[in-house]
């Protein structure tokens, strides 16, 4: 092997979220990367292609002819035992949906960044969570990042969670198009040794392999009107649900271990920000959280008892943690960067309300939708949210969703 410049591990540097994700993939010593360009993800895979071209990442690179094939390549590679990565956005994710839907059932620990983008139509290339939210029931673990540093750390953590033997599920690391994909920040790179210790060797196809040394039929037809078929199918489904549920603990443990190795302590499932003695709260997802925290700080400085809950892990949904954080409040508002068309609210709002069912006390709540199509969610937006939530009193049936960017 020719001497090549090593990755700048163990250093501080400035980069955007796409480069941070690429650096994490290199540090995770991924075996196979399949790529297809799409905004706002393209620079991420360009970084990876360059790392491989320069010999800084010893991985196979497949420049596939579309996202559908990208994920198909990774499925084949994973069934041959490889640690794999790709990234996509919006329409690319939609085109990938057929193999995407199949990946969790095969329990393949593929890691894929969704650099989030609003979906068509109207035609749109800017940020929003609608793409990732549209696939939320497919069975992938989904974690949303707040900062560039969290993109890097979470992408490494994702491999540990995905390959944990009692989980074995694919993981989406979601980071906001535009705001995290192109936003540059100071980050600390972990040491390669620390990452190697944290992840260990790839452990990908012990359960399902296409390997002449241990021949098996992977994913044969399963089902039928009666008998062993449907019962086998149920066993697979229940196993998948159980793996998903265990991912909550796996994510918690992995974050704890990562903090021990690097000193960086990200909240694994939800983060409670200034929630001590809070009467009301904002619930956030992704990069909007920074501005929301500033708004909370201002409100606190003005003597208002307001806090914030950031949901990081959206799939599986940390219902117990969310309910515990919110159940004693008087009121809260959930800010979504996407739309739940069926319920005319934000999807995170619906999840949070569902998590609170069965509790003895239900806080008054409100869905806010903003930041669609690349719009900035500013401190002013969150001041409005805090204002609205602070004035809410009795539960008075469904409240109309507040559209933060509506010009009425």
């Amino acid at each position, binding site marked *: 092997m020719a001497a090549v410049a090593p990755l700048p591990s163990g250093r501080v540097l400035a980069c955007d979220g796409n480069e941070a994700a690429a650096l994490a993939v290199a540090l995770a010593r991924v075996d196979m990367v399949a790529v297809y360009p799409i905004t706002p993800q393209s620079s991420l895979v360009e970084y990876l292609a360059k790392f491989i071209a320069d010999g800084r990442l010893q991985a*196979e690179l497949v420049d596939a002819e579309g996202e559908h*094939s990208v994920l*198909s390549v990774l499925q084949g590679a994973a*069934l041959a035992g*490889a640690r794999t990565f790709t990234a996509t956005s919006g329409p690319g994710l939609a085109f990938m949906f057929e193999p995407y839907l199949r990946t969790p059932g095969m329990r393949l620990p593929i890691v894929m960044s969704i650099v989030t983008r609003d979906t068509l139509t109207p035609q749109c290339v800017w940020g929003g969570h609608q793409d990732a939210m549209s696939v939320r029931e497919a069975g992938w673990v989904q974690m949303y990042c707040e900062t560039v540093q969290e993109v890097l750390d979470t992408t490494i953590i994702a491999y540990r969670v995905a390959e944990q033997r009692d989980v074995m599920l694919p993981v989406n690391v979601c980071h906001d198009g535009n705001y995290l994909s192109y936003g540059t920040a100071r980050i600390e790179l972990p040491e390669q040794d620390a990452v190697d210790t944290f992840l260990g060797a790839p452990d990908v196809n012990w359960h399902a392999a296409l390997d002449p040394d241990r021949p098996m039929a*992977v994913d044969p*037809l*399963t089902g039928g009107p009666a008998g*062993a078929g449907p019962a086998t199918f149920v066993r697979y489904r229940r196993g998948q649900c159980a793996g998903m549920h265990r991912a909550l603990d796996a994510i918690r443990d992995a974050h704890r271990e990562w903090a021990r190795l690097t000193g960086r302590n990200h909240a694994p499932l939800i983060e409670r920000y200034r929630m001590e003695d809070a009467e009301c709260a904002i619930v956030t997802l992704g990069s909007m959280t920074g501005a929301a925290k500033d708004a909370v700080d201002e409100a606190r400085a003005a003597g208002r008892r307001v806090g914030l809950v950031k949901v990081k892990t959206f799939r599986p949904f940390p219902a117990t943690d969310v309910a515990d954080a919110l159940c004693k409040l008087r009121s809260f508002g959930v800010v979504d960067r996407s739309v739940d068309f069926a319920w005319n609210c934000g999807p995170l709002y619906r999840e949070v309300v569902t998590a609170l069912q069965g509790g003895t006390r239900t806080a008054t709540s409100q869905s806010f939708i903003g930041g669609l199509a690349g719009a900035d969610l500013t401190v002013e937006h969150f001041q409005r949210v805090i204002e609205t939530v602070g004035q809410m009193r009795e539960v008075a049936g469904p409240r109309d969703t507040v559209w933060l960017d509506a010009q009425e």
Partner: protein
Amino acid sequence: MPAYNTIAFHADRCDGCGKCMIACAQAKSASDSPRRARLEVLADDAGRFELTMCRQCADPECVQSCPAAALAKNAATGVIEWDHDKCIDCLLCTVGCSFAGIALDEAAGHVVKCDQCGGDPACVRACKPGALEYLTMARIYDEAGSLEDLFVQGLSACQGCNTELIMRHTLRRVGPDTVVAAPPGCVPGMGAVGYNGLTGTKVPVFHPLLTNTAPMLAGLKRVYKRKGRQVTALALAGDGGAADVGFQSLSGAAERGEEILFLVIDNEGYMNTGMQRSSCTPYGAWTTTTPVGRESHGKSQDAKNLPLLMVGHRCAYVATASTAFMADFYLKLDRALQASKTGFAYLHVYSPCTTGWRFPSKKNIEVARKAVESNFVLLWEYTPAAGLRLTRSVDDPVPLSEYLVALGKYRHLTPEQVAHLEQHIAENVAAIKRHALAEAAAPPASTRPGISSAGALQGPPASQA
């Protein structure tokens, strides 16, 4: 593997004189009675003749059935030899044989079978019309028995289906260090990919999406190559998945030169899902989505020429084959396998569908042969270095009607529709000839990075079977 001989029977030349049986009885049993012969010519109700005789099978059921190891295939001559000293007279061999090639000779008191008279069969000498012929077999028939059948017994293909024939011979030849991917279609439909926890294949097998066979195999193959392991990535796909919804991913993998052996079994439609139209369905054909009624008369477009499109990708190897020309198929399979070690190899095998094309199951090989003889199907091969060349002459075809008349799916054709098909075939022949001429006239093709010049493919030209 030595080239074995066999005694072939040309029923159309037989006049039923019975001299072969008498010659055999004299040579082997010192008797003039045809009942003591080791072969028998029988006439059916229509006056056609059949031969019962030992075929010296490469994969002999009689040997497998024998509990006393009294039967064994001689590796040097290919003859299945019977050992009187070991035989326990249980007659299980006579049950195992599908050709009545071994039978009890009551006068002798034990089973008897043909031993080819040590290389100069008396029956052949006695046959004046030339209905019996002593000839050397194509390699496929000799070799098949020494290679393990890597599909399980009892795959549930339709009666008379040739796809099973293609699959079994292919995987035997490609061998155990293989991963098979069979997208939805007849191959999984007959149980190859397994069902409720069982598998139909003795090598690793996967049932990919209809749309992603080539890229999933590409990912797998790249990883094994990285690991330094020799694993063949074999696709057994249908024409619908390859030419229609899976065409993008097939094209992408071919363009990248992924090292895959991609075998398409073309039965001209979505036969597994109930005989719907694909882009490989020929003009005029009835299918369940191109029905025949007052307003429409079968498919109104010509078939897509998928193998020629693959030539446009400059694959390491592209060839067409037919189940009626197995020796030709087998040679092309060898070349495709070799080419798949350095690039994308594409093999397009025409396989008539007894169920979907509406013809009696026993006529499958006959239909396949007529398709080739009438130029409805053209047999050729291509490498970037040698270009495209016909492997069977397209001159002097039999009339198209001889092919069409055999198939229910063309029963409704008007004279105008037949003329359209004839015109299409003429254009096809002209296009392939142009390709072949252009390739012959062109300077040696340069090679793409990562794709060998396919020099390893040199060998005798694929001759007609």
